[in-house]
């Protein structure tokens, strides 16, 4: 057991823990049985006191055996019931929350009509006062506001608040439907807990649409180039040893400057195998600019659109000769994890594994017949942005990135790739049966292969 890690299959994460405790108790019961059967031959009659002591030991061990077996059985039953109950309760709660959000949206839209004129007047007043302030005072106010916002950042690492944000984002589409006058009952029927016709992806599509109207598109075409100095041969390749653990895979994820790394291997049966590593979002990228690993692509991916970064990975795989028959393991971090999930589930590739870390991919179902491992930090804001986790066969590993009392740097420290690398190493050492089975099921590559890295550039649309 690694400290602080929780492992589960699908949306629930506690079931695996219940089963683990149950197995440990069953094992203790079996060992107590082995001890109990060894005691009677030791009562030889040499000393009545010793025989009485051994009698007492036997009785105690037998009682402990029965107790451990009962507890193990109760825990197994509880795990089964808990799993079923958790799913049905979550669905019922979501339906009620969906109706509440729609009703709140309806009320707020009507209220908004009344208070918007007042809000506009107040905002105009603030702008006027700001303009009247001398330059030095404006800087002071700006500094104060920055300090106040920085002071709020630690709160964004609170798992309870992050869970609330996750739920609120999942309900945003319901509130929006309520705002335009759709009755709450119909909203619940259309949402994720009903027919699944609306969801966080529709909210993301609306945001993407508004961004497109403002001239920012996350779905513009891209150009890819193999990275390296040997440009006459189309870039460099290098020899690489096959990945042998989760941490090894996570450690190979590139940065956003060369966001795609593809490793090609030959499996024991002579068939080709590919490992692809996909970078996370470039935090400094201009929205809708040349760097496709930007927020515009992020929103497009959550909206299930053909994001520029997604197109880049597809093109790189095509350039490496990957076909629908090539065995392929996708590994990605943050936006790269969402791309990895989308491609693994696309049906266009023979996916043989998926490893995603810190990805906003909760709204993307993972249903394929391949080992899938999702690593998330409970205190990371980014996985929360895709809303409540949906149907998933993936093994979900959740850990804490920032320890109690630690004062980390940066706005979202729990999203650091270095911290995810540490969690991946803990996951490698974890004794969860489901996790061990998923790691073991990833393809075994017998020999070294070659790796190529790719850069990607978004091609802006021609001027109108």
């Amino acid at each position, binding site marked *: 057991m690694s400290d602080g890690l929780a492992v589960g299959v699908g949306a629930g994460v506690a079931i695996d823990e219940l089963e683990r*405790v149950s197995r*440990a108790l069953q*094992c*203790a019961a079996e060992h107590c049985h082995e001890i109990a059967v060894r005691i009677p031959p030791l009562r*030889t009659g040499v000393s009545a006191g010793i025989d009485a002591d051994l009698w007492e030991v036997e009785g*105690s061990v037998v009682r402990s055996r029965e107790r451990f077996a009962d507890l193990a059985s109760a825990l197994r039953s509880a795990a089964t019931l808990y799993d079923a109950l958790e799913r049905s309760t979550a669905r019922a709660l979501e339906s009620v929350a969906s109706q509440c959000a729609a009703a709140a949206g309806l009320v707020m839209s009507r209220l908004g009509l009344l208070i918007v004129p007042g809000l506009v007047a107040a905002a105009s007043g603030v702008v006027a006062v700001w303009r009247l302030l001398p330059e030095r005072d404006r800087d002071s106010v700006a500094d104060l506001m920055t300090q106040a916002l920085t002071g709020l950042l630690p709160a964004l690492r609170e798992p309870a608040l992050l869970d609330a944000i996750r739920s609120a984002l999942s309900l945003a589409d319901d509130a929006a439907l309520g705002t335009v006058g759709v009755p709450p009952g119909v909203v619940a029927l259309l949402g994720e807990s009903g027919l699944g016709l609306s969801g966080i992806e529709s909210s993301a599509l609306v945001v993407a649409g508004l961004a497109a109207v403002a001239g920012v598109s996350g779905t513009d075409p891209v150009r890819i180039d193999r990275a390296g100095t040997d440009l006459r041969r189309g870039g460099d390749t290098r020899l690489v040893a096959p990945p042998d653990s989760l941490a090894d895979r996570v450690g190979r994820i590139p940065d956003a400057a060369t966001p795609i790394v593809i490793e090609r291997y030959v499996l024991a049966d002579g068939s080709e195998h590919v490992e692809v590593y996909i970078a996370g979002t470039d935090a400094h990228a201009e929205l809708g600019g040349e760097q496709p690993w930007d927020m515009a692509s992020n929103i497009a991916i959550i909206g299930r659109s053909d994001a520029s970064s997604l197109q880049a990975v597809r093109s790189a795989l095509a350039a490496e000769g990957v076909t629908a028959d090539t065995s392929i393991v996708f590994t990605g971090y943050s936006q790269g994890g969402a791309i990895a999930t989308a491609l693994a589930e696309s049906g266009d590739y023979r996916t043989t594994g998926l490893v995603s870390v810190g990805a906003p991919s909760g709204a993307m179902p993972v249903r394929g017949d391949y080992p899938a491992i999702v690593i998330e930090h409970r205190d990371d804001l980014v996985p929360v942005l895709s809303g409540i986790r949906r149907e998933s066969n993936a093994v979900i590993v959740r850990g804490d990135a920032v320890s109690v009392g630690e004062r980390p740097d940066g706005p979202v420290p729990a999203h650091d790739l270095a911290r995810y690398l540490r969690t991946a190493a803990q996951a490698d050492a974890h004794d969860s049966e489901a996790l061990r089975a998923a790691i073991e099921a990833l393809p075994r590559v017998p020999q070294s292969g070659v790796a190529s890295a790719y850069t990607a550039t978004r091609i802006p649309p021609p001027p109108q």
Partner: protein
Amino acid sequence: MFTPTTVVSSAACLPPGSGADPVGDLQRQGVLVGDLRERVVAVLALLPESRSFEGWWGPARDALHESLGIERARLEREVARLDSVRVQLDAAASHLALGGPG
């Protein structure tokens, strides 16, 4: 995986109490009791720590924690009892070997 820390020799695994060699019998019995003690200690090590099921189990978790506490205390008591039996057997064997009454 369960692995007792005491290595039991093949001689010690002969059934005690055959009567031909009372000192050897007592010594063998002492070794077997020591092995049992190690096995009980190994069971104690198998029991999950309460921190490993913290945070989601509520009142049932507390009941589980309490039950495991009772069983842990019971087995710890038996470890002490087996220690005492081992000491008694060793003392009896020494006494016999020195020619004392059986």
